[in-house]
């Protein structure tokens, strides 16, 4: 820790960081206080941050409260995530036009406005992990040019979490609380000052223009202690060892029905999840049927329409839809993308209206399973 390349800047320097980023053409997006929650939106200065606010999060509950310590980043994330900027909830895919009826040829344009160069302010370790998961899922230029371009341009001003939230479990998912990768600059609030780590050449170039000093041995130790304490104070824990295998063996467990008896299939968990990537497309035309458009929207595997096939839906029962979501996140994601789909941010726990806790439910499958409903087998189905 003594060799930790930690620098110290005073708080007003953050305004200079913002100014320099803007001068370099970045659109600054950071945490703001809106409708009683932390929401990511455009900021211009330190004054736009919810200084002095803290959050209390639990299953199905969220509260933003005045804090005694006037920290700049004394809260964790709200429902919002950076996914909203990289993979917008609503986007035009293409427009089509024709001069006459169905026999007329049609032209298709997929003109795309390029994304702005975003500078994300206050990105937490779990959120960096979420972006790196999205990179694997939708990172290819072919699949989503907008995402790729936004992703390549973005500047990450990260923040280390020294006060985890009540539904956080990043330590279990090995994604935090310390930011260790894919950032340009990383801040750690040390009293009235910031510890600064440099994560990229872009970050270094910006940092050079700030007034700073090297951290003292005491400050480095304080940094270490704060992050160690944060690791120990996670609101939740999920034992991940062997979890995908446990879940694979539980596909037909009656526990899914038990969860479904509480689940409203509202889809909140999928909307707030920073890695959920499913989308739907909606086609429309003008009244003359000369101009058509296709739009892409975030979709949720909790809707009945999601698995529509022929006259009905494959996942008709809510238990099947919850199973799809959790099995995908914690088991099948590994097969598909070589990583868990969960970063331990706890959003799905906080924003579930009935407070279903993924850590508790997943752990439940480790317990001796209750007697199974007997499924059909080849032997039963095919008497010799």
């Amino acid at each position, binding site marked *: 820790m003594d060799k930790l390349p930690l620098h110290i800047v005073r708080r007003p320097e953050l305004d200079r960081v913002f100014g320099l980023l803007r001068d370099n053409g970045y659109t600054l997006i950071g945490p703001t206080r809106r409708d009683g929650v932390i929401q990511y939106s455009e900021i211009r200065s330190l004054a736009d941050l919810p200084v002095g606010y803290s959050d209390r999060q639990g299953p199905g509950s969220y509260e933003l409260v005045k804090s005694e310590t006037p920290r700049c980043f004394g809260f964790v994330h709200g429902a919002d995530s950076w996914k909203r900027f990289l993979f917008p909830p609503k986007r035009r895919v293409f427009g089509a036009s024709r001069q006459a009826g169905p*026999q007329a040829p049609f032209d298709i344009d997929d003109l795309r406005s390029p994304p702005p160069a975003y500078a994300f302010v206050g990105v937490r370790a779990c959120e960096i992990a979420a972006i790196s998961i999205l990179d694997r899922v939708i990172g290819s230029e072919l699949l989503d040019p907008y995402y790729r371009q936004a992703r390549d341009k973005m500047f990450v001003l990260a923040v280390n979490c020294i006060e985890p939230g009540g539904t956080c479990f990043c330590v279990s998912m090995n994604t935090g609380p310390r930011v260790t990768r894919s950032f340009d600059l990383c801040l750690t609030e040390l009293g009235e000052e910031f510890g600064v780590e440099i994560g990229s050449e872009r970050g270094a170039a910006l940092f050079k223009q700030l007034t700073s000093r090297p951290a003292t041995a005491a400050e480095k130790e304080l940094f270490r202690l704060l992050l160690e304490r944060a690791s120990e104070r996670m609101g939740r824990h999920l034992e991940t060892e062997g979890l995908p295998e446990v879940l694979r063996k539980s596909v037909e467990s009656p526990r899914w029905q038990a969860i479904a008896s509480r689940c409203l299939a509202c889809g909140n968990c999928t909307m707030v999840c920073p890695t959920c990537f499913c*989308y739907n*497309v909606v086609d429309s035309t003008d009244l003359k049927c000369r101009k058509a458009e296709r739009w892409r929207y975030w979709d949720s595997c909790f809707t009945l329409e999601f698995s529509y096939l022929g006259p009905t839906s494959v996942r008709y029962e809510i238990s099947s839809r919850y199973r*799809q979501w959790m099995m995908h996140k914690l088991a099948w994601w590994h*097969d598909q993308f070589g990583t868990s789909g969960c970063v331990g941010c706890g959003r799905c726990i906080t924003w579930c209206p009935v407070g279903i806790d993924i850590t508790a439910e997943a752990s439940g499958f480790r317990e001796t399973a209750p007697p199974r409903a007997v499924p059909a087998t080849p032997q039963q189905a095919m008497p010799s």
Partner: protein
Amino acid sequence: MIAVQDRASVVCHDSRPMVPVTATIVEIQEESSNTRTYVLQIDDPALRSAYRFEPGQFNMVYVFGVGEAAISISSDPANNEYLAHTIRHVGSVTRAIARMKVGDKLGLRGPFGHGWPISRCRGRDILMVAGGIGLAPIRPLIYAILANRGQFGRVVLMYGGRSPSDLLYQKELAAWRDDGQMDLLVSVDYSIAQWDGPVGVVTDLIKRLRIRPDRTSVMVCGPRMMNRHVTWQLLRLRVAPDQLFISLERNMRCGVGRCGHCQYGPKFVCKDGPVFSYESIREVFGKEEI
């Protein structure tokens, strides 16, 4: 036209997998009361001649302003001029297609997915089991097999339909059978006076056949329950799990493993399938509402 695969057999036309190209309906063949085959020609000559597909692959078929449906290609893969989709008119997109006429324009994206593994089946007996519209993705496979008939052992098609008037490609199938190119067993769920074939489920046909399990590759495409029972029955007859191939159907929005709709356990049906070996999906196969 685009195919996002790293496979040599598929031509990558450009870098816009989400954007359809236009094709013209050149012929409409009545198959049954609610099913027709649409013969299409891709409008752009360069794209048309570059277009190649494998039996079992599908296109996303776009109706202007209405939407898209994933539909398997049912024509001869050796035909570079035209391609065909056999479409049952059941949803909003396919019902819009039902209102279209010869000369009308459709959009196409594709071909997508992995088809029937023909090259792995050379020298083996081929048993194809199809139910209803499930015959559509099997027909290109029959064309491909018959084009190299000498490379395969016994070739059998078992086909189950709802009623005699619901059976697809009847004349063509009869011609192939009469030529001695393949065996054909057809059954219907319910009958009419003129029908002298078996009545029942397609799985009953398997009992009429003595297969050589160690030499047989099986290709299955039909409704979910048919797929399940045919697969189980053939496993009981000792067909190897890696020689049982099943084509699956799912809701799809993109065709390239991005929209998430077609997930089947750990698989994306659009890009990992739609044809799977039983071996590769046994973790979830036969389980309810996966």
